[in-house]
């Protein structure tokens, strides 16, 4: 059995209660390298809570999340020390927030935003960091001449692309995305989606994408989890869930989309 046959991330009965309020209940799945999983559902369905649990930003009330580290050892995220968790976040993981202001340092130049993650993994040579930052800006279709501008003077779509560059420059194996196209104009969304699709395929990334937009799920993901009221009510291949939805709620979600 090669490493590729081992799941990268395993969720086992993951649950979260906020006091007596249910966040999510008994979520289990396996994610493999190169696989993109979409978590869909309406707001309040528990999908953002689940993303925070999976990315170790929130402690589960029950269940566990296991992750196969770069050294091949599969560890329970709850057993990691703070330093180990931070290291994961800086190197092996990316996290793309819906609001780029949360994922960027707004007062720091674009080059600084992108280069910072490289410095965190030990890069020291200024010229090389700047060169890598320039090439990543170009890759996300930002004119490298704007490398010294801060994201404050960028448009919403550019900020989101900068956030993506910042996340991907360290070649993470797993990227979490929370509504990555939310809040953007439709034309900007299309460009971002196409860019993300290409990057995810080229880099062979695994990704977990939370979205309420089924078109985003269809374009980006291989598999879907449908959430309602904190529970996963349906799972399957993306085209299977969208073209042959089994549960009443999924049928409602799919039929509520206006054809373009």
């Amino acid at each position, binding site marked *: 059995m090669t490493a590729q046959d081992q799941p990268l991330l395993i969720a086992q009965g993951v649950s979260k209660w906020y006091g007596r309020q249910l966040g999510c209940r008994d979520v289990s799945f396996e994610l*493999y390298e190169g*696989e993109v999983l979409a978590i869909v559902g309406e707001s309040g369905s528990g999908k953002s809570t689940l993303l925070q649990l999976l990315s170790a930003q929130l402690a589960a009330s029950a269940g566990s999340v296991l992750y196969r580290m770069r050294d091949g050892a599969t560890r329970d995220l709850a057993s990691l020390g703070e330093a180990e968790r931070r290291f994961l976040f800086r190197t092996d993981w990316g996290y793309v927030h819906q609001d780029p202001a949360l994922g960027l340092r707004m007062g720091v130049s674009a080059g600084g935003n992108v280069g910072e993650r490289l410095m965190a993994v030990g890069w020291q040579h200024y010229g090389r960091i700047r060169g890598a930052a320039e090439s990543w800006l170009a890759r996300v279709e930002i004119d490298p001449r704007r490398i010294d501008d801060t994201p404050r003077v960028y448009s919403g779509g550019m900020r989101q692309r900068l956030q993506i560059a910042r996340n991907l420059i360290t070649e993470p194996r797993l990227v979490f995305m929370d509504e990555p196209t939310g809040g953007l104009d439709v034309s900007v969304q*299309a*460009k971002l*989606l*196409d860019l993300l*699709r290409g990057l995810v395929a080229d880099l062979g990334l695994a990704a977990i994408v939370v979205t309420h937009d089924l078109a985003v799920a269809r*374009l980006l993901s*291989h*598999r879907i989890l449908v959430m309602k009221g904190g529970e996963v009510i349906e799972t*399957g*291949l993306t*085209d*299977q869930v969208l*073209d*042959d939805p*089994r*549960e*009443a709620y999924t*049928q*409602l979600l799919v*039929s509520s989309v206006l054809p373009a």
Partner: protein
Amino acid sequence: MILELARVAKTFTMHLQGGIRLPIVQNVSFCVTPGECVVLTGPSGAGKSSILKMIFGTYRCDEGRIVVSHGGASTDIAAAPPRDVLRLRRSVIGYVSQFLRAVPRVPALAVVAESGDSPRAEALLRRLNIPERLWSLPPATFSGGEQQRVNIARGFLPERPLLLLDEPTASLDPHNRQVVIDLISEKKRQGTAMVAIVHDQQVCDAVADRVIDVTRFAAA
């Protein structure tokens, strides 16, 4: 034998329409061998596309088995985990849908050369009479027939041992229809197994090794 369907059944349950159950097909059983083209016929609504979609894993199969055998391994699509179905789609099963689902901004040539083989993609586009000036444009604005030909090129480029064709000639003129007939014949000679839905009688006569009338699987 590369594909075997045994007692396959499909029913849709429409929860939003008060839980109406729509039986589509039952007892679907047939086999396909390498190099063979099996054409499914029957009136529209008989379940031809549903059968193709079950073989590809897009529709769930309620009963029976859909076994794909290749390279010494057999997989029952009806029961396989998503990961196994994805693996089969990457290397064994190809699906040429009726319509191109165009991704915004991706040029026609890149749509066809997904796997990176540009010279063959160019040759195929040329053969399917897509003018070279269109290759660098996204197909969203192409005519129906042009989109279908881009889709055919994309589906025929990778060498998959099992191809599913959903009305590949529906919006084509006679000349391009003949090109597709030739492409299918070449695939057969290379040992590709195909299941096709073809309404055009002339195309059917030209490519079918066996015709299966889907009405015999009508669900009671």
